[in-house]
C-alpha cells in the first residue's frame, strides 16, 4: 500500500500530513519549528526521506532545514546565500536603481537524480545551487547577470524567484520564473539564460509585450511533456508547447484569469487545475465561493469544481506554491489556503475534503507519493 505525505509550509511552522493510499484518514504532525515561516518544503525524488525546507523570520532572517527521515527530525544546514561578485542593482518600485539584497528562499527544487543536489530560488531574484545537501550554496549568477537584470523590478510580494523546473528528459534544461521579471530558460544547466516571454501580454507594463517585466505567478509542467508548460500569470493563464519559445493564452471561459496556483494532473498531461482569484486588488475567490477550475483539453474550456468546497462566505487565497498532485492511480490534487485549510481530492477534482482545517495560513503544499 502506498503512502502519501503532504508537506505543508505555513506562516507559523511546518506540518507533515500522512495517510495511506486510501487518503481517507490523515495524521497531522505537531508544528515543526512553530512560529517560523516556512515558504517551501520539498523532498528529493530519489530519496523521499530527504526533505529540504526554507525557514525564515522577520527577526532572524533565513535558515535552512534538512530532514533525512521524512520530516520527523531536522538538522539546520547552510543559510549563507551570497550573491556572486559585486551584486549591482535592479530596478526599484519607483524605477530607480536598488541594490540586490538577499531576503529569503522562496522555492527549493531537489535534483531529479542526486539527493545531495538542490536548487534554491531566492528574493531578491537569484538562483542558487547546493551539491552538498544544503551545507553550502553557490549562485548560478548568469541568470541575474543577464543583460536585462538591471531592469527587473519587484512585484507586490518582492522580487522573488519562485518557480524552478527541471526538464526530466534533459537535466541541463532549467526553467525559472520571477515576479515580476518573467520567465527564463537555460539549456546548459544554468550557465546561460534566455527570456521566454514571447506571447505574454501585460497591459500594466509601459510596453505590454516587453521581453521582461511580466509578473509570472507560477509555471507547471507534466513530466511526460516537458516542452509543454502551463503558466498562471498575474492576469492570464498561458501555455507553451515549444519550451517557452511562444506562449498562447488559454484563459477561455474562466470567470477571472487572475490567480496564483496552477498544476497538472499526474496522468493526464492535458488536464490542468487553477484556482481563479477575483482580481489583483481582492485576493479571494469570486462571490465568496471557493472553486477549482479544471480543463481537460489543455486550456480554453474550463469547468468549475465545487463539491466539498465552501460555496458561501469564503474569502481565502490560494498562494502560488500551495497546490500539488500525488501520483496514485486515481490522481490526488491538494491545495492549501490562507485560511489554514488543506483540501484534497482523490477523484481528479470531482470532489474535495478538508484534510486539515485550522492550520496557520498555508504558503506551500508539496505531495510525496511513497
Amino acid at each position: 500500500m502506498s503512502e502519501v505525505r503532504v508537506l505543508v509550509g505555513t506562516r507559523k511552522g511546518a506540518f507533515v500530513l500522512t495517510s495511506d493510499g486510501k487518503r481517507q484518514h490523515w495524521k497531522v504532525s505537531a508544528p515543526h519549528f512553530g512560529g517560523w515561516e516556512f515558504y517551501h518544503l520539498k523532498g528529493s525524488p530519489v530519496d523521499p526521506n530527504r526533505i529540504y525546507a526554507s525557514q525564515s523570520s522577520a527577526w532572524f532572517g533565513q535558515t535552512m532545514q534538512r530532514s533525512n527521515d521524512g520530516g520527523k527530525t531536522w538538522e539546520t544546514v547552510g543559510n549563507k546565500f551570497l550573491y556572486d561578485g559585486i551584486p549591482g542593482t535592479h530596478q526599484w518600485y519607483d524605477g530607480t536603481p536598488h541594490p540586490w539584497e538577499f531576503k529569503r528562499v522562496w522555492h527549493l527544487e531537489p535534483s531529479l537524480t542526486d539527493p545531495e543536489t538542490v536548487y534554491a530560488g531566492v528574493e531578491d531574484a537569484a538562483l542558487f545551487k547546493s551539491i552538498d545537501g544544503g551545507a553550502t550554496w553557490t549562485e548560478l549568477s548568469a541568470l541575474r547577470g543577464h543583460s536585462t537584470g538591471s531592469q527587473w523590478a519587484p512585484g507586490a510580494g518582492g522580487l522573488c524567484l519562485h518557480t524552478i523546473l527541471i526538464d526530466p528528459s534533459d537535466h541541463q534544461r532549467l526553467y525559472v520564473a520571477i515576479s515580476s521579471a518573467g520567465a527564463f530558460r537555460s539549456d546548459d544547466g544554468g550557465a546561460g539564460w534566455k527570456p521566454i516571454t514571447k506571447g505574454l501580454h501585460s497591459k500594466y507594463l509601459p510596453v505590454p509585450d516587453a521581453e521582461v517585466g511580466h509578473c509570472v505567478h507560477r509555471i507547471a509542467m507534466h513530466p511526460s511533456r516537458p516542452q509543454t508548460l502551463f503558466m498562471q500569470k498575474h492576469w492570464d493563464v498561458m501555455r507553451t508547447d515549444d519550451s517557452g519559445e511562444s506562449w498562447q493564452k488559454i484563459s477561455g471561459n474562466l470567470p477571472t484569469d487572475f490567480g496564483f496556483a496552477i498544476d497538472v494532473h499526474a496522468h493526464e498531461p492535458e488536464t490542468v487545475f487553477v484556482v481563479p482569484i477575483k482580481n489583483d486588488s481582492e485576493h479571494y475567490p469570486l462571490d465568496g465561493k471557493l472553486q477549482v477550475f479544471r480543463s481537460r483539453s489543455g486550456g480554453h474550456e474550463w469547468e468549475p469544481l465545487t463539491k466539498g468546497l465552501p460555496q458561501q462566505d469564503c474569502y481565502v487565497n490560494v498562494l502560488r506554491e500551495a497546490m500539488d498532485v500525488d501520483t496514485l492511480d486515481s490522481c490526488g490534487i491538494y491545495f492549501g489556503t490562507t485560511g489554514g485549510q488543506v483540501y484534497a481530492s482523490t477523484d481528479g477534482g470531482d470532489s474535495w475534503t478538508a484534510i486539515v482545517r485550522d492550520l496557520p495560513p498555508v504558503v506551500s503544499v508539496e505531495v510525496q507519493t511513497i
Partner: protein
Amino acid sequence: MVRVELPYHLRQLARVDKEIAVDVPGEVTIASVLDALEARFPMLQGTIRDHVTGERRPLLRFFACEEDLSFAPPTAPLPDAVARGVEPLIILGAIAGGSR
C-alpha cells in the same frame, strides 16, 4: 564563562534551554561573544547578525545589566559583570510585527 539568554525562536533553533554559557577567549565584547556563540552553535550563524554586513539584525536588541547595548560598538568591552558570568548578555527579539 559568559552567560547568554537567547530569544525563544533561537533557543528552538539551537535546541537549548533558556540560558547558555560560552567560553569567550580574550576580551569580552558583543562581537567576541557572538563569535563564540556561533562557533558552538553554527545553526545561529546569520540569525543574530547579517552574513554580509556583520551587523545586528534590525529587530534584535542586546541588553545587559539593565543597559541597552544595541548601539554600542560591537568591539566595546561588555560590563564586567557579564565578563565574569554574574549577569547574562540578553539577546532579545523586538516586540514588533503582528501583521501575520
